[in-house]
């Protein structure tokens, strides 16, 4: 079995969304995430509406509404960090658990955080499912993200796989020599000894990567690298793509305005 199977998120395909200018997709996704995070607390009618926007995008890009919803669940474990809000937010007590009090305001706040994270994760995942990583890098670069950051991300992407293979080779080498005699139970020594072996492997992986980085840099210098990553001038934006990218943003903006108005009425 491959202990370090790395897989690309991107799935090829043909759709309006796949073919959209990656720069517009990045700006649109960031705008959507920002919009989702700005949803006022307790404005629950806004959430299904936003989900409907994301769902329509999932349909247009042929990813599938339910699949995207399921993938968005990846964000939920992280919302556990906000679970304490249930107890600490002042409000009407709903339930007493020993010395802890669950308040209604706390539940509302926690639900809001969980829903917003889930929706924001869907927006990000939709971007990564429909845009090749190299296009994302290109988009970030043309959107003037500092080139050092883009380069570091590009190298990380390129060498993650090489590093994974190297780690795999080390693990195989260890496994091949983790022998035991017939009357022994399991292979290897004490926990401490095994921890030391694992530590040595991590160290060796670091040294190999470090040495590789020097060789890669030499290869870059050999081809005239002078600290600046060169590329072509990005093509101009097309109005059609800008309009397509603006639709979901406008929809979310409209939902937000309604949510704010509704929220004010409620209060």
């Amino acid at each position, binding site marked *: 079995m491959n202990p370090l199977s790395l897989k690309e998120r991107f799935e090829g395909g043909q759709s309006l969304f796949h073919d959209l200018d990656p720069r517009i997709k990045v700006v649109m996704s960031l705008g959507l995430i920002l919009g989702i995070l700005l949803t006022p607390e307790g404005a629950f009618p806004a959430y299904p509406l936003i989900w409907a926007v994301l769902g329509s995008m999932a349909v247009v890009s042929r990813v599938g509404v339910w699949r995207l919803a399921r993938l968005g669940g990846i964000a939920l474990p992280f919302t556990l960090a906000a679970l304490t809000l249930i107890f600490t937010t002042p409000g009407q007590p709903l339930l007493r658990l020993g010395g802890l009090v669950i308040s209604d305001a706390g539940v509302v706040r926690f639900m809001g955080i969980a829903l917003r994270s889930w929706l924001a994760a869907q927006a990000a995942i939709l971007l990564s499912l429909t845009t090749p*990583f*190299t296009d994302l*890098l290109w988009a970030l670069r043309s959107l003037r993200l500092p080139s050092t950051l883009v380069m570091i991300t*590009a*190298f990380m*992407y*390129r*060498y993650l*796989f*090489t590093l994974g293979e190297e780690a795999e080779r080390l693990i195989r080498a260890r496994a091949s020599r983790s022998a035991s005699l017939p009357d022994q139970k399991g292979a290897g020594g004490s926990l401490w000894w095994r921890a030391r072996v694992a530590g040595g492997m991590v160290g060796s992986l670091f040294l190999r990567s470090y040495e*590789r980085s020097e*060789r*890669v840099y*030499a*290869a*870059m*210098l*050999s*081809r*005239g*690298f*002078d600290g600046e990553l*060169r*590329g*072509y*001038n990005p093509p101009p934006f097309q109005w059609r793509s800008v309009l397509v990218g603006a639709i979901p943003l406008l929809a979310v903006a409209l939902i937000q305005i309604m949510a704010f108005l509704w929220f004010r009425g409620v209060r």
Partner: protein
Amino acid sequence: MSSPVIMVEELSFRYPDGQTALSKVSFQVYAGEKVALIGPNGAGKSTLLLHLNGVLRGTTGSLTIAQMPLTEANLGPIRASVGLVFQNPDDQLFSPRVYQDVAFGPLNMRLPENEVRSRVTQALAAVGLGGFENRISHHLSGGEKKRVAIASVLSMEPKILVLDEPSAGLDPRTRRSLIQLLGSLQQQTMLISTHDMRLAETLCNRVIVLDGGKIVADGPASELLHDQVLMELHGLETP
């Protein structure tokens, strides 16, 4: 004969830890020559190659590449004249996609966009990988990576092609097709560091033997490669 494209004079190099890697190495390579650089592990072959485009700078001695003395000011044009192909393609191919790697050198030379594109197309065609532009580098086979590595240097149209152990780790068929590929670049001046004596015999007309950081022999391939005493003395073998 015209003036040499590589002129190395009394080049010495010591690693920062004090270990001597090259001592008083001198040789010249002329346009169109195909030279094999052979010698045991640790002889200083790779170290010498890294000097040819100024990635490493000698402790003493001087280099002249394509009539340019190797100085800080000349590094750019010298790196455009010396195409260095590294032993491990994973070190050489650092871009996510094949196209980006082959275009990296020409872009650094600030060539216009259409010139870069046509050079990438030509270089990939020359190594038999036309149409590979959008492939992802880490998904290629070992032989394909090697070819892309060579293309990434050919796209700079270097005066001298320098290869470090080009056939290491290749299966026999891939190795043969690599030899064929290198043989097809007839006009190209080449310096090939290798342990593959048959490759040296097939491709090169001249051999330089390096051992312990010194040049111990320099002469026609047909003579030196079949000098059993010389080969065995330096941990090598006849083809």
